[in-house]
């Protein structure tokens, strides 16, 4: 536990209450409630996880589907609050980037840059200043006045990536499966951008199913399985163990 930890996670637990009966509506709910058919089951999405992330580290988070990786990122970003435990992180510096979220399909690319930018915490001045840079990076110069619903999925994620990584705003970048999108060229370009940010002192948490992406970019890996921290350490060792487990 050194002094320069930018993210401190201690005994983090996230419990979801899941209704076992999948009610379809109010009527259904009332009927089942009366019949006492509704029971709740607790799902531990994150179970007593603790680890620190230091400034400038690139940490890969691995684990099978539904093991709690995305929940972990959402908790760090502050989108949801944990059931118990603590996360110490400067929320102002955190930027969470997930796929295809946060765009309004009915608006144009330009309008979405401003809407989305404002929501992730950029000021109007910042957006005015970096607008051209964002568009250029996303390679969407001719499409900005076009509605986003007419974009291809690759174009949408390019724009999302460009907004999230604009300027030097994000000191802590949380990437949820975003490095595996777009064409080969854009992927390389975004990897380069991430590397620049790391060079500039950004800290990155990367969730990915692609072992290659993790091995290539991270120096440390955290393996989460069924909400529990299975392993934390050097990326090669952890990935090798994960492979051996065969994804259980």
């Amino acid at each position: 536990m050194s002094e320069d930890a930018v993210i401190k996670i201690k005994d983090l637990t996230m419990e979801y209450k899941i209704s076992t009966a999948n009610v379809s509506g109010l009527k259904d709910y009332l009927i089942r409630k009366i019949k006492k058919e509704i029971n709740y089951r607790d799902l531990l999405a994150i179970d007593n996880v603790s680890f620190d992330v230091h400034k400038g580290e690139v940490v890969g988070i691995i684990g099978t589907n539904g093991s709690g990786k995305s929940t972990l990122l959402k908790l760090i970003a502050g989108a949801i609050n944990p059931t118990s435990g603590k996360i110490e992180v400067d929320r102002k510096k955190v930027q969470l980037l997930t796929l295809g979220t946060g765009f309004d399909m009915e608006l144009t690319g330009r309008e979405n840059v401003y809407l989305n930018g404002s929501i992730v915490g950029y000021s109007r001045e910042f957006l005015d200043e970096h607008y051209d840079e964002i568009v250029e990076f996303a390679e969407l110069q001719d499409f900005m006045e076009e509605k986003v619903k007419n974009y291809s999925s690759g174009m949408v994620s390019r724009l999302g990536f460009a907004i999230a990584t604009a300027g030097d705003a994000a000191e802590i970048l949380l990437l949820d499966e975003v490095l595996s999108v777009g064409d080969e060229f854009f992927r390389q370009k975004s990897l380069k951008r991430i590397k620049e940010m790391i060079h500039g002192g950004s800290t990155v948490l990367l969730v990915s199913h692609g072992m290659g992406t993790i091995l290539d970019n991270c120096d440390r890996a955290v393996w989460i399985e069924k909400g529990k921290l299975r392993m934390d350490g050097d990326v090669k060792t952890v990935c090798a163990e994960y492979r051996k487990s065969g994804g259980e």
Partner: protein
Amino acid sequence: MEDIKQYWFVIRELTGREIKRKYARSYLGILWSVLSPLLYMLVMTLVFSTMFKRKIQNFPLYYLSGYLFYNMFCQVSQSVMTVLVDNRNLLLRVKVPKNVFVLSRCYTALVNFGFSLLAFFPLLFLSGVKPSITMLLFPIDIILCMLFGLGVGYMLSIVYVFFADVKYLYTVFLTMLMYLSAIFYPIEQVPTAMQVVIYNNPVYDFMLFARDCMVYNTFPSADIWARIIIWGIASYLLGYLIFLRRENEVMQHI
């Protein structure tokens, strides 16, 4: 300070989106906020004004002043109800308080209301109503009506996350509320028992207040003052409290 500036920026961006979307495929755009109350007024006047001629002196004004507030309440409560679900994708990424989304819906309704006033004021003065000091009370009525709608919207927004059905129920409820707020008929027209119901309809109080200070140029009675203040503030506080307490539960479900 920096934060507040950012929130304001977000609210304006969200409101811009809201309005652009609402009128996305129309030629007249936001002008519909002026036209639609006028058209409603026209229809209602054609249909009902002869029926209640002796009881209501200036039917178009009577109707419009009521309609504006009913509409304000509907817009605020209905749009706040769906705000969490509509913005599901954005909510997970926000750095701003979730309340900013709610406030943007209120601001949108307020902007719409402002445009409707472009229909209301000319009509008011064309009908020969003289400008009066009581008109300065109008904004108070608007704010309190908005707070009332906001409070109801807060509560409904939580319910709506878990039960989408509420939306349909609420639409029916709003229609009932309209008939129970004497928008287009004089209250004396209905049986006494019904009058009691209407008198206890909060939305009716906001209309009464508006008609007093804008159309009849009289100071609203202490009774109406008390009602709109209590309804507005109480609804807001209760709604906000529920909203805060359920916030985390909602985020997990969304």
